[in-house]
């Protein structure tokens, strides 16, 4: 192993104390006889969500989300010039940097991004691309930096929601705000929004799978899908959780989206009603030499298309010109 000269290094080999903890794996259950999960939720309950936009003062847009104990922060920079020449593209591109903080998981993570983090970054890029008007900022990129501060399950779906809120906070033109949800499938249970413990606990039997789906709610299309673990094709297709799961994700039923709407509404109320449904007006990009947006329009008259939330909780497309 080469020595990492850029960091303060500790001893080479360390072991997590969790490996030495004694606990009986067979006693772990997902759902008790009353149908309640370990944290007293029903199988179809989501954990409470807290969300806040505009948390990083230096970024064009940012958001913070708590999904139960899972905490994710996301900052968006750009649109700005593409950094790598080989990334040049006539439409805009999204660049996602996804990282678990070293202390976010029960076992310590390394500083270098591992394969899971790279995979998640790619999935988030692809989940958000259909929602962003990429043709509006040709030859430039938007950097989406995501840090998971604590992982208590459903980190990917939290990251997808968080980054799409951050994008809308950065006034990047979007068709839709992407929402996401995770599901834990095992032999006879189907748990919405699983905790870390529920994600990793495997029950003896055939089916043990985790499923994450990202959805564009206004056109009802799936933009991300990741499933790991064993699941019966029949089950996934026919009488299956999938249908009902997608059903949950429909705007009217999706708890996470609903809470998202409520959060934006709360932010909106805070900042003086619905006409200003995001915490900031159009932001002047902070970098020097960026006086004009890459689309060539002046900042003041930038058109913003976004999802507004009306008082009665219904969503509406809002296309307006801000001055």
């Amino acid at each position, binding site marked *: 192993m080469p020595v*990492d000269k*850029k*960091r*303060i*290094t*500790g*001893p080479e*080999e*360390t*072991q*997590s*104390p969790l490996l*030495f*903890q*004694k*606990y009986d794996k067979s006693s772990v259950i997902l759902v008790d006889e009353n149908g309640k999960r370990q944290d007293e939720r029903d199988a179809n309950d989501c954990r409470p969500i807290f969300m806040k936009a505009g*948390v*990083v*003062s*230096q*970024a064009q847009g940012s958001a913070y989300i708590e999904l139960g*104990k899972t*905490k994710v*922060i*996301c*900052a968006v*920079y750009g649109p*700005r010039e593409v950094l790598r020449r080989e990334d040049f593209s006539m439409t805009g591109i999204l660049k996602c*940097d996804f*990282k678990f*903080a*070293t*202390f*976010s*998981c*029960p076992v*310590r993570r390394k*500083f270098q991004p591992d394969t899971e983090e790279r995979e998640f970054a790619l999935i988030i890029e692809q989940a958000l691309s259909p929602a962003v008007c990429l043709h509006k900022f040709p030859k430039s990129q938007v*950097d989406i*930096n*995501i*840090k998971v*501060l*604590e*992982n*208590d399950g459903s980190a990917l779906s939290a990251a997808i929601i968080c980054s799409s809120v951050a994008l809308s906070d950065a006034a990047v033109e979007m068709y839709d705000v992407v929402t996401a949800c995770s599901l834990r499938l095992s032999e006879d249970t189907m748990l919405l929004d699983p905790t870390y413990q529920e994600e990793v606990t495997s029950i003896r039997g055939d089916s043990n799978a985790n499923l994450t789906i990202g959805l564009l709610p206004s056109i009802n299309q799936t933009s991300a899908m990741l499933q790991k673990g064993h699941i019966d094709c029949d089950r996934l297709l026919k009488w299956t959780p999938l249908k009902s799961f997608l059903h949950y994700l429909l705007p009217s039923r999706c708890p996470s989206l609903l809470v998202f709407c409520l959060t934006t509404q709360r932010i909106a109320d805070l900042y003086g009603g619905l006409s200003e449904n995001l915490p900031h007006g159009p932001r002047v990009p*902070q*970098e020097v030499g960026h006086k004009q947006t890459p689309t060539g329009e002046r900042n003041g008259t930038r058109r913003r298309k976004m999802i507004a939330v009306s008082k009665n909780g219904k969503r509406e497309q809002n296309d307006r010109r801000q001055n």
Partner: protein
Amino acid sequence: MTQPPSKYAVVDHLFYPMMGTIGNADGSALVKLGNTTVICGIKAEFSAPLLDEPTKGYLVPNVELPPLCSSQFKSGPPGDQAQVVSQLIDNIVKSSKLINLESLCIAEGTLCWVLHCDMICLDYEGNVVDACLLSLLAALKNVLLPDVRIVEDSGLAVTSEKSTIPLDLSSHPVSTSFVVFDDSILLADPTKEEETMATGVVTIVTTEDGNLCAVHKPGGSPLPVNKMQDCIARSKERANKVRKLLEKTFKSSKG
């Protein structure tokens, strides 16, 4: 400029620590100095002590300035500034005897604790050193370690399920940074804007018994001796306030 730079102005930003925010970490704290936000999480792991220091554990502080916190940072390995701040914090930890490393030893020569202290900047608006050191101190204060027993016959360690043992901190170093404008104006707790415009930076670390622990002045415009003494006096005063606040937060987070 957000604040008019009056002579010897010492303006404290809103200062806001929060402890025990991350459940998966053994100790954690979030510190906000104005907009600058640093989160510190501590993970304790097992390792073997060094051969020449068989009774000592390790404390490994690392500062991360990810691209998330400001557009000036790139992703990848830590940049120059992150390395400098990490090194500075490591020096402060070592020289202030912040923690008695021998208390981290479990079995002499075979097993000890390694405290990985990772400070991540979430919002970079200047004065990251003060925020990092403060977050580290606050996080160390709420570290709880599990009880470790070594089973006689197998020689393997068994940890208790609940973590109950707090760390024994022997000193509380607090740093105060100033920026210097052409040896006439001193500003405490500088913002990013002030840092870029200033002609020099000086960081002074004091411990609670009023001793100087570290002075860091990496070049810049020269500072007259009387100004330096002024800095030290001010930093002592502020450090005491900060320590009181820290204590208060610690009590409220427990109770």
